[in-house]
């Protein structure tokens, strides 16, 4: 009996084709919208994080585990022989050595503590976006030179061409070097302009007494950061006590704030699902009203009211399920396309470029894909079936065939 009711429900869908198609479009559209919305949001956040990584640290950073817990030159890499091997790995573009150490910057007017980064100038430009953000002057080209963030330069009251003394604690006691300011970094991003200090790695080695580096920064394409870091972490690749960290590992602090905002979006996504389910309900209600005579005939022919109610519920559920499948197919299709092609990025940048630049977002925005989005969209189906079971189907249980047959 249940099977016959199901078959009836299925056939009814195709008898009233226009209504079915309209309903399909509604549920399909809602599914598509939900998938693309979360795909966009998650992708946006991931793109943001990767972009920030190219300013704040690097796509992948190789350091000792001791350095990760205590970022001091004391915990520098033991040797650099393995770097040529790393450079040959798939998806690793460039390997730039960095020697980061705390120091005192002294200008003629004042002194400030800062984290100084000793870099290999040409390679640094390949792993970081900072060297490209120097409108005044140029990037460090060799020993004897220093580049500062604009906010830092302002506080120290120095300009391009002036001299600064860098005081540091080396393994052999205090060291100092006089360096010439050759460039000022102005990226528009607060933390970059406030804290960037770059010198040639040779000078850094002199100041710290460290012959190697505190870290190796790798140029890895967007979204390959985590897999590449994981690959490098397999035993035998890196020396003992040395590990590779992706930008996601290093910027985990920022993630928590973003996660909180994501959850604030949930009420809106739920409203949307409820809305789509209500549309399903409205069509079912109208359909039931319009088909009163038809139901009267069916009831007169022997189909009991309970089965009628189930039939209507099943019709609503089938339609919603079909709509979900269609919407998911198109939705994930577009999502996948936009996760490989950077189509949305330039569009958004053209409207909101100014604002987004301040948060270190480049013009590359890729969508994210996840099966979880389908879960969210499925809520629509569940709600639709629920609503259909409630009002219209319940009405049908109390159908009186004789009256129904005479309905207009």
């Amino acid at each position, binding site marked *: 009996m249940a099977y016959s009711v199901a078959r009836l429900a299925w056939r009814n869908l195709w008898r009233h084709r226009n209504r079915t198609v*309209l309903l399909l479009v509604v549920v399909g559209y809602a599914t598509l919208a939900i998938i693309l919305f979360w795909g966009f949001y998650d992708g946006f956040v991931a793109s943001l994080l990767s972009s920030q990584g190219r300013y704040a640290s690097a796509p992948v950073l190789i350091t000792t585990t001791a350095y990760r817990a205590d970022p001091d030159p004391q915990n520098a890499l033991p040797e650099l022989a393995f770097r040529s091997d790393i450079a040959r790995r798939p998806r690793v573009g460039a390997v730039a050595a960095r020697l980061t150490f705390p120091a005192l910057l002294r200008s003629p007017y004042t002194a400030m503590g800062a984290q100084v980064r000793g870099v290999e100038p040409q390679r640094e430009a390949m792993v970081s976006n900072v060297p490209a953000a120097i409108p005044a002057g140029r990037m460090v080209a060799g020993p004897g030179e220093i580049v500062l963030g604009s906010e830092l330069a*302002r506080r120290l009251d120095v300009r391009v061409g002036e001299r600064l003394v860098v005081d540091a604690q080396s393994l052999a006691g205090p060291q100092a070097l006089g360096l010439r300011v050759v460039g000022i970094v102005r990226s528009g991003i607060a933390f970059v302009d406030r804290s960037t200090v770059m010198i040639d790695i040779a000078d850094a080695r002199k100041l710290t007494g460290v012959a190697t580096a505190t870290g190796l920064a790798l140029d890895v394409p967007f979204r390959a950061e985590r897999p590449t870091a994981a690959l490098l972490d397999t035993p035998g690749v890196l020396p003992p006590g040395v590990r590779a960290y992706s930008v996601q590992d290093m910027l985990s602090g920022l993630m928590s704030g973003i996660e909180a*905002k994501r*959850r604030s979006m949930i*009420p809106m996504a739920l409203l949307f699902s409820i809305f789509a389910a209500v549309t399903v309900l409205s069509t079912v209600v109208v359909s039931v009203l319009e088909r009163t005579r038809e139901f009267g005939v069916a009831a007169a022919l022997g189909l009991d009211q309970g089965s009628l109610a189930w039939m209507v519920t099943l019709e609503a559920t089938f339609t919603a399920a079909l709509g979900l499948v269609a919407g998911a197919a198109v939705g994930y299709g577009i999502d996948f396309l936009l996760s490989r092609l950077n189509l949305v990025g330039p569009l958004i940048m053209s409207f909101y470029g100014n604002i987004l630049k301040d948060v270190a977002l480049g013009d590359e925005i890729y969508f994210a894909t996840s099966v979880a989005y389908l879960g969210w969209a499925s809520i629509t189906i569940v709600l639709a079936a629920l609503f259909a079971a409630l009002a219209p189907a319940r009405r049908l249980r109390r159908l009186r065939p004789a009256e129904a047959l005479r309905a207009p």
Partner: protein
Amino acid sequence: MLSLAWRNLWRQRRRSLTTAAAVALVVLISILFYSMGGALTNSFYQDVTQRAGHLQVHVTGYRDLVDLRDRLLWPADTLQATIARAAPGAVVFGVLQVPALVGSPSRSRGAAVLGEDRPPALGEGGSGRTLVAGSLVPPGDQRDIVLGAALANALHVGVGDEVSVYAPGTEGIGAALYTVRGLVHLDDPTAEAAAAYLSLAAAQELAAPDAVGRFELHFPSLHDMRSDGAVAATKDRLEQALGPGYAVETWRQIDPTLLGLVKAMDPILYGMSLIFYVLAGLLVLNTVYLSLIERVREFGLVIALGAEGRQVVLMILTESVLLCLTGAAVGLAAGLAAVAALAPGFSLPGFEGLYAALGISPILYPSVSPGQVTFALIFALVTAVAAALWPALLATRIEPVEAMRHTA
């Protein structure tokens, strides 16, 4: 015509009710949707204002002054009293930030030492700091210091250890020993590695007796970015009370970057409401169309009896307008009532624990603007009336006999 339209509506009570309900629902959910978007914007607003206050008072031209001594506001107590009088209802406190060298027996690091007595009325949740060990420094305390966890790590100290703070070139004693009382975590890892907190009195004794670097004014009960008028009014009063020599800035002026982030939400919210309205339009279209298409037969009959096509269309229009206005009014009332009920703040059930772990307030403050409400109303009305015209026009286009036999 009006009475005829009204009677028609009552003849088809269920159809009328369904259509009116659909319009009401669209208006209601549109308003709720917008209000959730408003809640999201307000959560950014809260982040910004809880961290830095709604207003700040500095020395005029403080952004261009380099030396700490030039940037001091003095005498702090008198100024604070003046400010408090000009800003009733605001929580006022002074902050003194001193660049200093923090040292332990093994290491030393540059840090930005912040002296403040954050009033308990504001709570710690919004300051951006999460306590991870020990406790915070009580107001007026002269012996204790709280460090960023990363800074404590770099200095090899923990709760209970002693650190030295050296602030040369200032008006105070310039150097002191403090006991680490607690450790905090900040979102920004660079800031955490240079974060240290003293009571205001301790900072003053160290660097600038009876002076502060800025005053912060917080309005803890202001949750809605749109009803920010009190802030502007207070700014005017403050400027009058303080006179020249002081810069009074609102939260928008203090950190334009954060305001940019708030504005960056706009494209996302526009996109979402666009997606939503397509669905809303479909719902209304669906309901109105389906409930009227059966009436083509009725219209055919009326035309066959001598009514002019024009009159039929006019009757339909009148009915629709009446019906949709009623539905929209109900939706409007329900929507505004819902927002008014939620506006004092609500939290998503089940998520409180997670938010507390992240150190973020779980309370959302929905709000909606008159423009958004008007748009929702106009959209619902226009769509509903347009959807009603189709079957009417259909009836007038085809032969009455055909119309009388029309089936959907």
